[in-house]
């Protein structure tokens, strides 16, 4: 073995020991999760703790005539019953939403959706609290309700929000009707209309991304504990953004922010459900402040599905204009957005429709216009980003269905049409017609790899044969090939256009190296299952050469963690991951000075080698990071302050734009409407890959939720505003049996502006998956002239498609 081989081998061994970026490190948090040793909000038991439960409205829209709490208060074990009348003197019967609206904490004069919170019973145990909710007598006068958002702005529509009926300018500009929330427009309307007026080919379709709900296994919950002596509030809760919650609690309660300790312990999934502030959090806080003892609130499954934060409910009139040979010239979209009874969307404040303007997708569309009208209805509020960046699933669904419809009209292959219109690799950074600067991409390479791997040409040939066989009556099965080529926009975001309640959407990392060379790092984000304790440590390991196993990652305690905006919209890696790398580099720079002092050379004479600085040309003279850490505390260079730590608040210069090519092969039994996914192939490009195993897990999870949304998951209301199917009896949460097998693949196009080139991946599979499934279903029926088939594609709806086409006769 020659010297160089020896050196290389030694370096490889040291690199492997670090378990840094790019390695399939096992998730360290799973040691406790797989043993049932996680510590969740509901595990918390405090001395004297009381339990709260809500009295909820059976009506979708009704006037409250009276509330009588006397029977409930008389039940032994009941300590208090809060109503709006108790909260009003404190100014807490309404709370601000993230979207610039206010939301009732407890209904005052009216209820506006079924299961709305009307009173909060506090009792000695969970069972008594629940019994007592049945003893609160509320007299209602039912009012006509609005379920269909297209009727919200009818001239004779009942006015829902009497509290703001005279306020004709909302947080996002003028309101056209008392039930109108905002109109938001972007792009060049005149130019777009002009292109459409003389285009060779146009398509126009109402694409509905139906109302559903992110359904983490752990529901929303909180424990508030107010110390009357110290005047301090400790609030444990299921918070995806604990610091934001602290600030909001301070703003609405008047307690100084330093006397509020917000702690998010282990969280059992979020998917956007745990970004917002809910009545239960406020009531547990008020209960504890009033009573001086801890108060716990734990939502049950039906409450979770029917009240806290729905997703989607976008009704998108989508148009494309193209030349006859398939070059897309313009896109025009109008969205009617059903926001429910309050505008409680969890979007960056300036973006009432999130990043819906990513709807030009992966295509070089020179001209576009988007308008969004938000309206109130008698439904639960929300509009959260369900495993996606803000409204990006909706946007990608619109463009990816629209290109299929265009391909159908042009008689072109849907893959070919996409390739023809892709933004080319040399066009990045690419300015989109609706205002975004795409950082990097290589769409043609990804698409080619995906098509070759799935065997696209052969699948189309098989499909042609099956279609003929179907026409001849030899089979009752339809084969669909779904394609989706998506571009996400994640990592909110640059302060210039992203804030929440005025707080710029930076994120943070604080890294502290202990004298013995082990590390604690704290973040402004909060994992809900993403594996942050594993992946952030890998970034630090690679950056500063300390093994990931010697690095502890801590999140969720606002007293110790640096301020951050939390985890949603795939922002942890793009923003806090960048902060982590930058903070680590600050430490490394100081370490280099210390090493130079120890080795008695000039800093410039040192070079970095995996886990150590060594003297150039003298490889045997080196100091490991571990040695440097000891020296940093005990033997720093003269005039240098001791210690080895750094903090970084990272303000991203741009969003990141992950992308991917997905293919789905589906077989549908026309007689039952049952669809079976034969294959699903997902190629993701999330830039630099920190942990391939975690990426694969994220892709599996995101695809499973996409499968659910596309194929049956929904929150439906009947004509009276009764919420249907809000339990796991009906709400489609696929089990391992229903979930298809996933084939995953990747290309790597690093983000040019991110310190480690990473883009984020947790939400891509959901964003790309939903239209892929829907396209497969639509493709299966397309040759029969079915036209656009709305989601969700559950069996009875697909059977109905066949029925309308006369396939069952």
């Amino acid at each position, binding site marked *: 073995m020659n010297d160089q081989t020896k050196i290389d081998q030694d370096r490889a061994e040291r690199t492997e020991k670090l378990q840094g970026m790019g390695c399939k490190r096992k998730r360290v948090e799973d040691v406790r999760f797989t043993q049932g040793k996680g510590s969740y909000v509901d595990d918390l038991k405090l001395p004297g703790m009381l339990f709260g439960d809500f009295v909820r409205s059976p009506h979708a829209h009704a006037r409250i005539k009276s509330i009588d709490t006397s029977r409930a208060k008389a039940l032994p074990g009941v300590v208090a019953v809060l109503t709006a009348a108790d909260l009003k003197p404190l100014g807490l019967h309404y709370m601000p939403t993230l979207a610039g609206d206010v939301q009732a904490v407890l209904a005052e004069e009216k209820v506006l959706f079924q299961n709305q919170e009307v009173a909060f019973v506090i009792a000695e145990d969970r*069972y008594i609290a629940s019994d007592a909710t049945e003893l609160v007598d509320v007299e209602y006068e039912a009012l006509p309700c609005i379920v269909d958002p297209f009727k919200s702005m009818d001239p004779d529509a009942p006015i829902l929000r009497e509290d703001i009926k005279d306020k004709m300018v909302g947080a996002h500009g003028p309101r056209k009707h008392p039930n109108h929330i905002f109109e938001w427009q972007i792009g060049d309307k005149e130019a777009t209309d002009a292109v459409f007026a003389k285009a060779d080919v146009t398509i126009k379709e109402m694409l509905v991304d139906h109302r559903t709900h992110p359904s983490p296994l752990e529901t929303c919950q909180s424990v508030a504990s107010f110390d009357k002596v110290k005047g301090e509030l400790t609030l444990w809760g299921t918070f995806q953004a604990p610091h934001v919650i602290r600030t909001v609690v301070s703003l609405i309660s008047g307690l100084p922010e330093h006397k509020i300790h917000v702690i998010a312990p282990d969280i059992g999934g979020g998917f956007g459900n745990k970004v917002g502030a809910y009545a239960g959090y406020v009531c547990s806080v008020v209960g504890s402040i009033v009573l001086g003892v801890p108060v716990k609130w734990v939502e049950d499954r039906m409450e979770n599905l029917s009240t806290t934060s729905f997703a989607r409910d976008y009704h998108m009139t989508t148009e494309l204009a193209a030349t006859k040979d398939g070059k897309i010239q313009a896109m025009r979209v109008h969205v009617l957005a059903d926001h429910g009874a309050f505008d409680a969307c969890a979007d960056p404040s300036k973006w009432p429709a999130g990043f819906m303007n990513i709807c030009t997708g992966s295509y070089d569309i020179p001209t576009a216009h988007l308008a969004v009208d938000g309206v109130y209805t008698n439904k639960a509020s929300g509009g959260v980003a369900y495993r996606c960046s803000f409204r990006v699933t909706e946007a990608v669904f619109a463009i990816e269905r629209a290109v299929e419809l265009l391909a159908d009209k042009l008689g072109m292959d849907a893959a070919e049409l996409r390739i023809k219109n892709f933004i080319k690799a040399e066009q990045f950074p690419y300015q989109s017609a609706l205002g975004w600067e795409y950082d990097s991409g290589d769409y043609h390479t990804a698409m080619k790899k995906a098509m070759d791997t799935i065997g696209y040409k052969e699948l189309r040939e098989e499909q042609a044969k099956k279609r003929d066989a179907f026409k001849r009556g030899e089979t009752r099965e339809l084969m669909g090939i779904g394609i989706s080529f998506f571009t996400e926009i994640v990592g909110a975001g640059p302060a210039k256009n992203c804030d929440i309640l005025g707080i710029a959407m930076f994120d943070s990392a604080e890294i502290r190296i202990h004298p013995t060379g082990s590390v604690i790092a704290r973040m402004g984000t909060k994992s809900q299952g993403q594996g942050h304790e594993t992946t952030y440590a890998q970034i630090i390991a690679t950056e500063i050469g300390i093994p990931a196993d010697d690095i502890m990652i801590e999140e969720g305690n606002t007293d110790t963690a640096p301020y951050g905006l939390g985890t949603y919209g795939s922002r942890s890696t793009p923003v806090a991951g960048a902060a982590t790398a930058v903070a680590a580099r600050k430490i490394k720079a100081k370490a280099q000075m210390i090493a130079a002092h120890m080795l008695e050379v000039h800093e410039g004479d040192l070079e970095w080698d995996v886990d150590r600085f060594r003297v150039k040309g003298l490889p045997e003279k080196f100091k490991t990071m571990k040695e440097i850490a000891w020296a940093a505390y005990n033997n720093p260079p003269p005039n240098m302050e001791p210690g080895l730590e750094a903090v970084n608040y990272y303000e991203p210069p741009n969003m990141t734009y992950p992308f991917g090519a997905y293919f789905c092969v589906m077989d549908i039994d026309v007689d*039952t409407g049952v669809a079976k996914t034969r294959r699903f192939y997902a190629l993701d490009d999330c830039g630099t890959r920190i942990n391939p195993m975690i990426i694969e897990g994220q892709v599996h999870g995101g695809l499973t939720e996409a499968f659910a949304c596309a194929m049956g998951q929904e929150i439906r209301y009947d004509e009276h505003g009764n919420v249907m199917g809000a339990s796991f009896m009906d709400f489609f949460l696929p089990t391992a049996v229903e979930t298809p097998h996933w084939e995953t693949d990747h290309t790597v196009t690093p983000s040019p502006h991110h310190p480690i080139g990473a883009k984020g991946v947790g939400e891509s599979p959901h964003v790309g998956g939903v239209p892929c499934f829907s396209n497969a279903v639509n493709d299966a029926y397309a040759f029969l002239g079915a036209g656009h088939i709305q989601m969700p594609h559950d069996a009875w709806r697909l059977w109905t498609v066949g029925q309308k086409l006369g396939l069952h006769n």
Partner: protein
Amino acid sequence: MIPGTFDYHRPASVEDAVALLARLGEDANILAGGHSLIPLMKTRLASPEHLVDLSGIGNLKGISVKGDEVVIGAMTTQFELISSEDLGRHIPIIAETSRLIADPQIRYKGTFGGNVANGDPGNDMPALMMCLGGIYSVTGPDGSREIAARDFYQGAYFTALEHGEILTAVRIPIPSPDHGYAYEKLKRKVGDYATAAAAVVITMAGGKCTSASIGLTNVSETPLWASDAAALLVGTSLDKASVDAAVAAAEAITQPASDMRGPAEYRTKMAGVMVRRALERAQSRAKG
């Protein structure tokens, strides 16, 4: 989803259970596994003051062959139905159906008697018992009596069982060893009740159907015995026209509710599709 307050009783014998039910009156419910009752209690659609758990009564469990019948104790779990060699040999459709009930965890706790006795039209065993001609043995304060499965179901959660009576066992005649059978169940996902399901048992001789019985699950307020549909098959070769006629006759007696599984029209048609598919499989299994 927090149940109201209740007292829990666990008698050791059928006599004790009957006496308890007589003493506690209408506010007592029998707990025989709980997979229908407990969800109703958690949503407070049912708020019994007393639960009388039958799991402590040893002699309510077990499967035995007696002459030309199989007798199944009411507290036999669905898992035990699946693993019984006697049942597998004589009436294999019971295991086939049991495997389609809920999921393995529930089948370890869910009981045969609970499934047939509580009158939930979504349960799978009632239609199967009607198909097979099962006889329910019932004990109450006035002694024991027998009720045919085909006479037992009167409405959703409403049966011929009087309050205070306990279903103790079910007698099922063993079909011809040459019989063909199938249980076809359409459901949205594992654990779901049927959108529609059909149980079919037939015998064939010389290419002709010599007997047929069809049960339908969850397409009416009660499980259904589709006797007219079955009668249309006897004497035929199960040719397309005969099967079409039987399917139409089966569809005609359904009265499903529109729910999240689909509108009534769909569920009726699915009952027909399930009958057709069950017949195909039953025919392929029938000897003779």
